[in-house]
C-alpha cells in the first residue's frame, strides 16, 4: 500500500490522470515520486503480496495487502492465501490506459454481436467482475549491423536460349527491432495473449512499483529463451524482405535459402536477453461446472478477446427461425424427389461428420494446450529443449478423440442408413423420407454435439498450475 502523504489514505493509480490518486482527499502524485524503501531502482527486487488460489494454485501479485476474494484464473470465489514475497523488478511497464468503464463498454459492444451467447455473460454483475491485471511479457530487441553479402540471380530469354545471370549482392545493414513482446506467464494462455495483441510499446514507461497500486500482476514463469528464435526469425525475414525491395536489387531474385543460424550470421543478428515488462489487461473469468471462460480486454488499446459459448436454447430457437425462410426459398425454387432429398441429407451428414472431427481436433489441442508454448514449456521443461520444440504440433492420438464423446454416431448412423436405402432401392417414397428423417435426426444430434464441444472449446479446463498451494480439491 502506498500511503497518501496528505491524509495517510491508500494511493491508487488513476487511469484517467495517469497519476497516483488518494480516494479520500483526492491528492494526486506522480508515480515516480512515491516509493517504498525497498522500491529503490538499484534494488533488483521489490516487495509484493502474492495471492495464491487454494483451488488452482494460480498466483497473482499486488502491492496492496487487502484480501483478494476470488481467483481470476479459475473463477473460484474464495479467500486467496497471501504472503509477502520479493519479485524480480520489471524494466518497463505500459500503465493502464483504458478505464474499467471503457473496458466494460468494449466488452458490451462485442457481446451485443454475440446473439447466441448465454445471458449470464451479458449480466451487469458478471461484467463488473473485470479485474485489472498486469501480465508479464518478455520484450526482445534485435539489432543487425554490418556488411551483408547475398547471392542473387536474374533469368531471361533471348531467342532459343535461357540466360541466368548470377550476382553478388552486398551493402551495409543497420536495423533494429525493439520490444518484440511475448507473454511470459504460463497461466495466461497464448491463445488469449495473441488475440489481444499487439500492445503499442511506444507507450512503455520505466517501471516503478507504485504503478501496480490498485491492480494485480501475474508472475513471469516462462523461460526467456523460449521465444528467442521466433524473434530472430521475424527480424531476419523482415530485414531480408526490406533488402529485396532495394531499388538496385528489384530485378534480381535473392537465392540465399539459408537456415536461421546462417542467415543470422549473414545479417549480423544480435538478440540480447529480453527485458521484463508488464502490460495491462482487464481480465474476467466465468466459471460453469468444471470449465472456465475468460474475457480479456487490452488495457492499452481496448481490443477484446473473449471465450463465448453458445446457448443451446438460443441456438435451437435461431435454427427454427432460420428454417422458415429457407423452407420458403426451397419451396419457391425447387421440387426435390425423395431420392434426391436423401442424397442431400447424406451429403449434409457427411459434411457434419467432417465438421465434428475438425472441431474435436481443435478442442483436443486447446484442452491439451498443445499450441500454448509457455504452458508446454512449464509442463515439459524436463523433457524438451529450452524452446519447447517437442510440443506444439504433434498429432493427437485417436484415443483422445474418443475421450471427447461419441457425438459423431448420429451422423455416422444416418450415413450408413442412407447408403443401405440406396442399395436396397425400394419403390416406396416412405423409405426415402424415413432415411431423410433419420439423416436429419443424425445431423441435428451431431450438430448439437458439435455445439456442446464448441462450448467446451470456448471454455477451458479449470487451470491447475501445480504451484505450491494449488489443490483442486480444496
Amino acid at each position, binding site marked *: 500500500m502506498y500511503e497518501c502523504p496528505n491524509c495517510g489514505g491508500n494511493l491508487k493509480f488513476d487511469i484517467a490522470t495517469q497519476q497516483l490518486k488518494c480516494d479520500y482527499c483526492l491528492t494526486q502524485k506522480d508515480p515516480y515520486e512515491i516509493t517504498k524503501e525497498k522500491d529503490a531502482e538499484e534494488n533488483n527486487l521489490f516487495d509484493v503480496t502474492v495471492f495464491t488460489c487454494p483451488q488452482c494454485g494460480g498466483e497473482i501479485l499486488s502491492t496492496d495487502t487487502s484480501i483478494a476474494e476470488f481467483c481470476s484464473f479459475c473463477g473460484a470465489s474464495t479467500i486467496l492465501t497471501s504472503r509477502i514475497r520479493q519479485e524480480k523488478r520489471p524494466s518497463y511497464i505500459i500503465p493502464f490506459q483504458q478505464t474499467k468503464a471503457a473496458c466494460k463498454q468494449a466488452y458490451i459492444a462485442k457481446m451485443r454481436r454475440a446473439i447466441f451467447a448465454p445471458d449470464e455473460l451479458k449480466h451487469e454483475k458478471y461484467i463488473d467482475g473485470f479485474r485489472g491485471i498486469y501480465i508479464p511479457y518478455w520484450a526482445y530487441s534485435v539489432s543487425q549491423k554490418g556488411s551483408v553479402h547475398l547471392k542473387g540471380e536474374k533469368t531471361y530469354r533471348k531467342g532459343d536460349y535461357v540466360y541466368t545471370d548470377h550476382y553478388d549482392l552486398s551493402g551495409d545493414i*543497420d536495423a533494429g527491432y525493439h520490444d518484440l513482446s511475448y507473454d511470459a506467464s504460463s497461466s495466461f494462455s497464448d491463445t488469449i495473449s495473441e488475440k489481444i495483441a499487439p500492445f503499442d510499446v511506444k507507450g512503455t514507461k520505466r517501471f516503478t512499483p507504485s504503478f501496480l497500486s490498485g491492480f494485480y500482476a501475474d508472475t513471469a514463469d516462462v523461460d526467456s529463451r523460449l521465444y528467442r528464435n521466433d524473434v530472430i526469425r521475424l527480424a531476419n525475414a523482415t530485414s531480408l524482405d526490406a533488402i529485396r525491395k532495394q531499388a538496385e536489387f528489384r530485378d534480381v531474385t535473392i537465392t540465399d535459402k539459408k537456415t536461421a543460424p546462417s542467415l543470422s550470421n549473414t545479417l549480423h543478428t544480435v538478440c540480447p536477453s529480453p527485458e521484463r515488462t508488464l502490460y495491462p489487461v482487464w481480465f474476467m473469468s466465468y466459471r460453469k461446472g468444471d470449465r472456465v471462460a475468460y474475457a480479456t480486454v487490452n488495457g492499452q488499446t481496448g481490443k477484446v478477446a473473449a471465450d463465448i459459448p453458445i446457448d443451446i436454447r438460443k441456438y435451437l430457437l435461431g435454427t427454427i427461425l432460420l428454417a422458415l425462410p429457407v423452407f420458403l426459398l426451397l419451396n419457391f425454387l425447387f421440387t426435390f424427389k425423395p431420392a434426391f432429398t436423401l442424397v442431400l441429407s447424406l451429403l*449434409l451428414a457427411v459434411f457434419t461428420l467432417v465438421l465434428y472431427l475438425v472441431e474435436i481436433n481443435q478442442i483436443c489441442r486447446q484442452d491439451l494446450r498443445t499450441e500454448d508454448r509457455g504452458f508446454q514449456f512449464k509442463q515439459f521443461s524436463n523433457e524438451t529443449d529450452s524452446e519447447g520444440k517437442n510440443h506444439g504440433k504433434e498429432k493427437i492420438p485417436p484415443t483422445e478423440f474418443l475421450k471427447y464423446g461419441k457425438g459423431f454416431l448420429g451422423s455416422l448412423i444416418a450415413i450408413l442408413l442412407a447408403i443401405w436405402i440406396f442399395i436396397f432401392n425400394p419403390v416406396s417414397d416412405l423409405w426415402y423420407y424415413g432415411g431423410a428423417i433419420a439423416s436429419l435426426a443424425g445431423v441435428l444430434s451431431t*450438430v448439437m454435439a458439435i455445439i456442446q464441444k464448441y462450448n467446451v472449446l470456448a471454455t477451458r479446463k479449470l487451470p491447475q498450475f501445480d504451484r505450491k498451494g494449488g489443490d483442486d480439491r480444496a
Partner: protein
Amino acid sequence: MLKRIKKIPLILLLIGCFCFPQTVHAETEDELALDPIVWENPETGYKVFLEDDAQLLSPENRTQLAAEMQQITAYGNVVFKSISYNSYSASFYAGDFYHDTFGQSSGTLFLIDMDNREIYIFSDGAVYKTITTSYANTITDNVYGYASRGDYYGCASNAYQQIHSLLAGRKIAQPMKYINNALLALIFAALINYFLAKLLSANAAKPSSSEILSAISTKFTFSNPRKQKISQDKIYRPLSSSSSSSSSHHSSGSHRSSGSHRSSGGHRSGGGGGHRF
C-alpha cells in the same frame, strides 16, 4: 349452363361408342383392348388419345378415363399410354411417343411403363409451362401408390384430375414436397446457424507480422547497395509450338448430347417427371 356445355363432349363420346356397336362385337376382347380411343375437341382441335397396350384398364375404365381426359383438351392434347415392353427409359419413350403422335403441339401424356415399373408425365407446348417437370414429379409422387396397388385407372384418373386442376389455375396438394423441403430446411438451418453462431462469437484474428512490427519501434537502413555480376548460365530451350495445341483438339471429337436418341436429332422440346411403382 356452363356445366351443361362441359358435359357435351362426354355425351358425344358416349354416343360415338354406342353408335358403332357392331364393330365392337366383331372383334375379340383382346383386340378391343388394343384399339386406341381418339376424340377431338371441336372447339380447340386438341385430341384425347388413349392407348392401353399393356391392357391395364377394363373397357368401362377406358371409357370413363377417356371422358375424364376430355376436360384437358381445353388446354392441349391429352394422351394415356400403357406399355408392357420398353427398351428405353420411361422418360425417353414418353417424349418420343408424344412427339411422334402430336409433334410439337401443346399437350400432356401419362405413361404407365410396366417394363420399367414406372409412371411418367410428359408435357409440351403451352401445357408444359403449367405442368412443369417439378409438377410432373409432384403429381406422380401423389399417385404412384395407386399403381403400386394395381389400381391403374385410379392412378391415371387422379393424375389427370391434378393436371386439370393445375391447368385450370387451381392448386394441388404437394405434401411430399413440403415434407422434403421442411427436412432440408431444418438441416440447412442447423448448419448455417452453427456457422453464424461461431462467426458472431469469434474473436479478432491473431495480428499479422506487419501489425506487430507497426506497434514496435523499428529502424532499417541499407546503405551502399552493390550488385556485381559474377557468372552467366546459358541453356538451349527452344520455344515449343506444339505443346499447347494438343488439349485444344479434345472438344472437337465426339459431342454427346443427352437429347439425341433414336429420333433424327433436332430440337426436342417439353419435359416431365415420373415415379417408379
